[in-house]
């Protein structure tokens, strides 16, 4: 019995210690930005692998999600004879919710897991400690560019997702199902506000990008340097990121659109 209580206490301390390490790690990585001449090429390479390589999955998912929204919205709204409102529905759903959330989930699965595995393997093969031996701070050289690349890439991916989704929704509802195009855009423009909807959506993506990249990079940096450790760190990245995104989404939505 006492053993169990002690184990519970140890677990609690472990969790708090992990959070502390994560905060310390974030501070170190954010403060230790390399000099522009060294850091910029590193950042560009990471933007390429985190952002550009995630573009394909984001565009394809956005297209299909937009098309599904168009189909579903048309089916429901045509019962009430107001299928012209489908444009408004697609745009608001994508810009406020699905764009940021689905992109963040895809980002965690596509880019976050890769970051964790890469950094975890660097740790397991002692590349990080040999960098320290050479007097190169791995937080600066390896972590900071990846972290910043994630922060920058995620909002870009999410707005591309929304635009492609709206285009996909238009393809289905206007070109295939015959919603009048003027009403489609007109309803959308009269109900979507740039500041309230689009910019709030972008704020969400910035928060999600921050959280997802932080979790991914920290899990890699903090993993047990064995093959089993890397595999469990990669799993944790995807699970924690998804939970964090969905939980934070509720909080952010309540703050932004809750009217209290």
């Amino acid at each position, binding site marked *: 019995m006492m053993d169990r209580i002690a184990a519970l206490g140890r677990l609690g301390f472990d969790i708090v210690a992990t959070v502390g390490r994560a905060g310390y790690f974030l501070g170190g990585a954010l403060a230790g930005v390399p000099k522009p001449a060294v850091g910029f*090429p590193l950042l560009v390479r990471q933007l390429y692998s985190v*952002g*550009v390589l995630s*573009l394909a999955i984001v565009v394809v998912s956005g297209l299909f999600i937009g098309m599904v929204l168009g189909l579903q919205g048309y089916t429901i709204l045509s019962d009430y004879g107001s299928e012209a409102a489908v444009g408004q529905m697609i745009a608001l759903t994508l810009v406020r919710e699905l764009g940021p959330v689905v992109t963040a989930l895809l980002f965690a699965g596509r880019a976050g897991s890769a970051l964790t595995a890469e950094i975890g393997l660097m740790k397991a093969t002692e590349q990080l400690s040999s960098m320290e031996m050479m007097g190169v701070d791995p937080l600066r050289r390896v972590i900071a560019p990846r972290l910043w690349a994630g922060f920058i890439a995620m909002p870009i991916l999410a*707005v591309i997702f929304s*635009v492609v989704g709206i285009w996909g929704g238009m393809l289905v509802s206007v070109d295939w199902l015959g919603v009048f195009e003027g009403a489609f855009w007109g309803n959308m*423009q009269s109900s979507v*506000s*740039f500041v309230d909807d689009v910019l709030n959506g972008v704020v969400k993506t910035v928060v999600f990008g921050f959280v997802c990249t932080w979790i991914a990079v920290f899990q890699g940096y903090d993993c047990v340097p064995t093959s089993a450790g890397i595999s469990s760190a990669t799993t944790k990245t995807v699970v924690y990121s998804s939970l964090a995104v969905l939980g934070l989404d509720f909080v952010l939505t309540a703050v932004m659109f809750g009217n209290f």
Partner: protein
Amino acid sequence: MAQRTTEIITGLFMIAGLAAVLVLALQVSGLSPKSAGDTYTLYANFNDVGGISPRGKVAMAGVKVGSVRSVTLDKETFQARVELAIDADVDNIPADSSAVIRTSGILGDQYIDISIGGDMESLNPGDSFYSTQSAMNLERLITNFASGK
């Protein structure tokens, strides 16, 4: 891959993001650079504004000529006072025109429609509409009908 190629592709990616924001701003939320500024203000008092809210449409013969800027309660008359921003180039609204709240479609948004009068004088900036017609309240209509009033 060569650093140069990576840089170019990443640059294209960033530009695509910027273009996507522009599309969201101009095409999706209808934010047009020219719409700000050149408007003048008119007021209309309603007994019941229904679903009219700021940014709502103000139309004349179905054509959008402005937007609702604010909806406040006039504490003396207990009426709703709606501030309308009318496009500056529509400066010849006859003084005896009336503001009517209509609904676009059966479930659509409510908007303010300006019914044209016949007066030679036109409304000046800051004027109020002389006659208004409030939102049609379907529930009240049915209640009145059922109780035979």
